[in-house]
């Protein structure tokens, strides 16, 4: 976390001091709220935007690169590794990933490693490889090296679930200054607030950035059931049991033969 805390002021200072920053980003999201219902099969949200010249300045550069990072609500997850003990496979070693995003999508118009150099990517946390994923290691909390087996496994499992992704063709420039980005929302997406961070690069340097957000909510019966189970566990259990008894009794009435 300490590294993260240090990174933010550096980015802010870097932006503020850059005299060449003559651009401004204007973005709009097709939908700020995604409702997950029983028939939800996932959808793509569309983020539209333009690169505008900042007040008083009219010069726009010819080629821009854009990276959109979408981070879902944070959650602490444990990554466990199985080991053979006495002939059977058991969960032996584990690491806790503290407040890792449940969802993380890095969308860009070309591979992030082509947009700028490794140092900048790391500093700005752009790309799955450069995103901070702090682990609890004993009493400390720190991000590990990129090829740490637990970090690799964590990202791989999240990618298999469709919750982490890096798409280098998800952003399209319609004109040199108008772009659209497709934000994929898979069917098992967690509910909560999603932060959208948009960064504009030119010639390998960050020139402008902006933020937006979207909310994923469960609606209808699903949300009602999930809330009831969490907030009124005992009552929920009693009602489920009652439902079981009713179903059982109904069946015995329907199928009753002399």
């Amino acid at each position, binding site marked *: 976390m300490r590294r993260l805390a240090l990174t933010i002021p550096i980015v802010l200072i870097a932006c503020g001091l850059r005299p060449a920053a003559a651009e401004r980003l204007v973005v709009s999201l097709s939908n700020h709220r995604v409702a997950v219902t029983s028939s939800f099969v996932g959808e793509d949200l569309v983020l539209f935007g333009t690169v505008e010249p900042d007040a008083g300045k009219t010069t726009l550069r010819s080629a821009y690169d854009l990276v959109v990072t979408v981070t879902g609500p944070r959650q602490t997850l*444990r990554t466990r590794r199985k080991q053979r003990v006495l002939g059977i496979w058991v969960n032996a070693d584990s690491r806790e990933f503290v407040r890792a995003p449940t969802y993380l999508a890095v969308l860009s118009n070309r591979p992030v490693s082509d947009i700028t150099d490794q140092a900048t990517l790391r500093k700005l946390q752009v790309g799955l490889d450069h995103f901070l994923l702090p682990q609890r290691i004993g009493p400390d909390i720190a991000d590990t090296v990129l090829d740490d087996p637990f970090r690799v496994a964590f990202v791989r499992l999240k990618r298999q679930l469709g919750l982490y992704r890096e798409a280098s063709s998800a952003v399209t420039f319609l004109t040199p200054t108008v772009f659209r980005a497709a934000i994929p929302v898979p069917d098992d997406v967690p509910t909560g607030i999603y932060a959208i961070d948009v960064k504009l690069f030119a010639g390998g340097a960050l020139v402008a950035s902006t933020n937006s957000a979207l909310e994923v909510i469960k609606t209808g019966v*699903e949300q009602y059931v999930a809330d009831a189970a969490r907030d009124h566990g005992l009552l929920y259990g009693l009602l*489920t049991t009652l439902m*079981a008894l009713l*179903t059982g009794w109904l069946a015995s009435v329907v199928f009753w033969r002399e």
Partner: protein
Amino acid sequence: MQVYLPIADLPVNIFLVLGMGLAVGFISGMFGIGGGFLMTPLLIFIGIPSAVAVASVSSHIAASSFTGAIAYWRKGALDVALAMMLLSAGIVGTATGVWLFTKLRELDQLDLMIGLSYVTLLTVVGGLMIYESVRAEMRAHQGMPATLRRPGSHTWLHGLPFKLRFKRSKIYVSAIPVWAIGFIIGFVGAIMGIGGGFLLVPMLIYFLRVPTVTVIGTSMVLTLVTMASATVMHAATNHLVDAILALMLMVGGVIGAQFGARTGQKMRGERLRLLLGLLVFTVGLRFAYQLVVQPDDLFSLRHVGSE
């Protein structure tokens, strides 16, 4: 058609789950068991987290055993006094099981424990059933009576104190083995998501010498109450009971059970026990295989807490 499961937090195909309910219901009706030992592994197999599967199946078994209990009640094939005695210990067993379930989940060893319990119980019980029914078949071939139940025969269990008389089952036994059996069934049911009918029926027959007439009905009452209380306890402590999943399983299960029961009535008892034994044993082997063979992925994720 997809249905979103609010507690398991994933979409499933409604026809797949209903079909599983029907198939397991058919088997449970045929053998007079709850079928939890088949349903829980099937749910885990289609991707439901094992903790949610165990907790939700308990309500499904409560539904199917209630149907069964009503049918046996109508036939008068129910020993209420014996069921009540088993129950008083069964509830304690369930509470202990739910408590251990919560602890194991915190230690990341719940899946292992569920796996090991399945392997041990199913292979042992399945093996014994196969052995027993093959012997009975062989005796039948030699023209001897198929069952060897001797009403007057006593074991050391009959020498224990606190003797009670159960009129309907025509037995006179100590309360200690009755309580022990009730506790074991309640405990195992909460940990493994099974009603324990396939364990309880042989235990009642071999240890307490309960006659075949009342054994299944009585076992169904015990299953009903332990599973109903397991549902309530799992819901109150772990918040893991998925009511929508449970409802789909129940509907499929109770319908399947009716057809299963009709098929089962046409078969001989020994043949039925052999088939059940083979089934139980196979499921046990499947679990053993899973524990011994190197998994495709050594890594797995588990939710620890939201922020």
